[in-house]
């Protein structure tokens, strides 16, 4: 068992690309689910719209990088409005089913062979990330960082931008939620009818929360697409949404830093489990009849499912959350 490599891999993943993607997506979901109480099970669609908006604009249409970012953000706003109009008046569980269906519609559409020319079909698109890396002030070929956190110039640049985005989004969420607007939003989560009786337009507030959360989700999509230098439709399935929920509930919903902590803990735990199991299988501590190296990934996702169940049953407020603050389904 090579513990130093296991620990350094885990330490790297604490600030790694996946952590950034999941943290951003979960910050967006936090606005919708944590603060507004909207059961959006289509967050993967917002991530996909961000990534595909960028990829299609740059690779298929040949337009510059920044325009791709604009298209991705506008796409997320459009999706939120389209999704919100029919569903935001519905009860929580209906909203969940409608959003999960919408997310599948987005994924099935971009992966269809009919749209292969525009979206790349099931193999996706690539070759749109260079515009982003061209902006990098870091010197190519060098590596940056210290200790276990040494990254190539490309990875360091996307991580830097990603963490700046996380800081910005957290600041925005923090400021929004201590504003009167944020208090109304939390009021909707606790008791929609009470807020409505005060003369607030509940529907408009929910829509605004859905749009803001969706736009932050699209930012996660940019990091996802650029970090992998490609987009593939099946990475944006419903399981992505479920993992984002796990991250959010782990860190604590309705807390500004909850999603960030949740993402870091989630990925450190996943990487730790994976590395330990792979080494244990390799060293023969676990007989190959029980588990081989391809099954390690499956076992760790089983543990994710189990963790989500146990969290929701025994500690629904997560690591940081406040049980009084988050009375999920008080209504």
């Amino acid at each position, binding site marked *: 068992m090579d513990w130093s490599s296991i620990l350094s891999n885990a330490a790297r993943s604490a600030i790694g690309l996946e952590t950034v993607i999941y943290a951003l997506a979960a910050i967006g979901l936090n606005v919708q689910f944590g603060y507004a109480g909207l*059961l959006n099970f289509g967050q993967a669609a917002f991530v996909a719209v961000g990534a595909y908006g960028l990829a299609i604009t740059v690779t298929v249409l040949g337009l510059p990088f920044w325009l791709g970012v604009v298209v991705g953000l506008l796409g997320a706003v459009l999706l939120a409005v389209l999704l919100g109009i029919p569903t935001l008046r519905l*009860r929580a569980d*209906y909203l969940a089913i409608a959003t999960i269906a919408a997310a599948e519609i987005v994924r099935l559409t971009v992966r269809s062979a009919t749209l292969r020319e525009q979206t790349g079909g099931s193999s996706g698109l690539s070759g749109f990330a260079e515009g982003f890396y061209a902006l990098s002030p870091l010197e190519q070929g060098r590596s940056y960082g210290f200790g276990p956190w040494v990254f190539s110039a490309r990875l360091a640049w996307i991580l830097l931008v990603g963490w700046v985005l996380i800081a910005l989004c957290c600041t925005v969420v923090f400021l929004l939620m201590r504003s009167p607007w944020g208090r109304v939003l939390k009021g909707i989560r606790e008791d929609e009818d009470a807020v409505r009786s005060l003369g607030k337009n509940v529907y408009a507030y929910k829509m605004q929360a859905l749009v803001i959360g969706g736009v932050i989700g699209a930012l996660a999509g940019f990091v996802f697409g650029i970090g992998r230098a490609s987009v593939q439709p099946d990475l944006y399935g419903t399981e992505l949404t479920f993992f984002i929920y796990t991250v959010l509930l782990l860190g604590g919903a309705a807390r500004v830093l909850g999603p960030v902590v949740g993402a870091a803990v989630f990925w450190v735990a996943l990487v730790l489990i994976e590395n330990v199991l792979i080494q244990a299988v390799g060293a023969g501590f676990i007989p190959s009849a029980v588990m*081989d190296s391809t099954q390690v990934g499956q076992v760790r996702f089983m543990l994710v*499912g189990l963790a989500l*169940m146990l969290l929701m049953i025994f500690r629904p407020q997560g690591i940081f959350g406040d049980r009084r603050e988050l009375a*999920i389904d*008080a209504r």
Partner: protein
Amino acid sequence: MLPTLAAPRALLALVALALLLVLAPALPDGAGRAAAATATPGPAATAPTDVEGETLRVRVRTSEGEDVPGAAVTATGAGADPVTGTTGDDGVAELVVPGAGSYEVQLDVDTLEGPAAGLVPRQNPVQRDVTAGSANNYVFQVAEEGAEQAAAGGVSAGQVAQLVANGLRYGLIIALAAIGLSLVFGTTGLTNFAHGELITFGAIATYFLNVGAGIPFLLAAPLAVVAGAAAGYANDRLLWRPLRRRGTGLVAMMIVSIGLALLLRYFFLYLFGGSTQTYAEYQGQRGLDLGLFTLRPIDLISMVIAAVVLVVVGLVLVRTRLGKATRAVSDNPALAAASGIDVNRVILVVWVAGAALAALSGVLLGLAQQVQYQMGFQILLLVFAAVTLGGLGTAFGAMVGALVIGVFLEVSTIIVPTELRNVGALLVLILVLLVRPQGILGRASRIG
């Protein structure tokens, strides 16, 4: 797969699944994982095999989804020698072409043998663009000559009849699964995202009993349904009843069901592997010509079984005391409890029966398509669509909704590309929520 190893493995699998054990028993690595090359969506996307040039994977299969080995395919590019290959046992021929570009791919119909002899593809040869660095796949689907003419000559009455028949077959399978989902929602308010895994459970249990332990399908299928009922019992007694007693909220329970779904789905992947398998029997049946449409005998029998079961469930709900109690709890649990109905017992019965029906649905789905670890998850949204369309919480609504969704799915392929038909069904789901959220048979009540 060795029967000696496989029998305890199958039993272990059933016991483990039914009790929802987390730690897996010691299971030998099966042959099932050997053929893991079949399309499994997920992060592990096909990497380009760059030997020299690009690889074009050509697959030949019948319209029933059977792979055809030994068929010769040729790819001819501009200014390059033709590349020829023969399909292997998995029906795939890998043609290594000189580079990216446009190729004419031709299937030599004279080399089709066995059940595929005499069948023709819809289009032959075809133009195919081979791109660098991505998976290049093409599937020749071969069918009887008449089917080809029907496809070429626009929409014929026979084609519509065939699609309606296929849709009914699919709708009946969805209906079996939908009853449990709808009744569990009606009696407990739980939106159960793990219901898809109960469907998969039925198919995988049948597969392990049938192929693994060598039990004949006709015995394996009822055993799997019984195991499904046991899984439903375990679900309610070990998880949901304690949660209800704790007073866990509905949204929290919904998220717990998502966790359970992830846990079970990856457990199935762990047990079963990512490949697509079939039961040992009833493979490669030729369709029976029934005038307007053709169906395999096994499909006809499946449809009859599903229809009979649905009618029996309907009669039980309408005629028996238990059925009336179930509908009363669905309607208003507090009132039902006040009038002397044992609500927890009714819920337990709903779970057991619903899970058994879901398992039966999985068994039949495995016959109609193939067995795969996420088959239930893939059909789950259609089941939701059926339940919503019919009216959440009503058993008869779920049946009607499922048949409508099934037929709609198949018939919509006249206009919509086949791969996008689920998009149509999901759009219907959202539109129903917009226009008539209580569904076809649901009663209008405020749900927002």
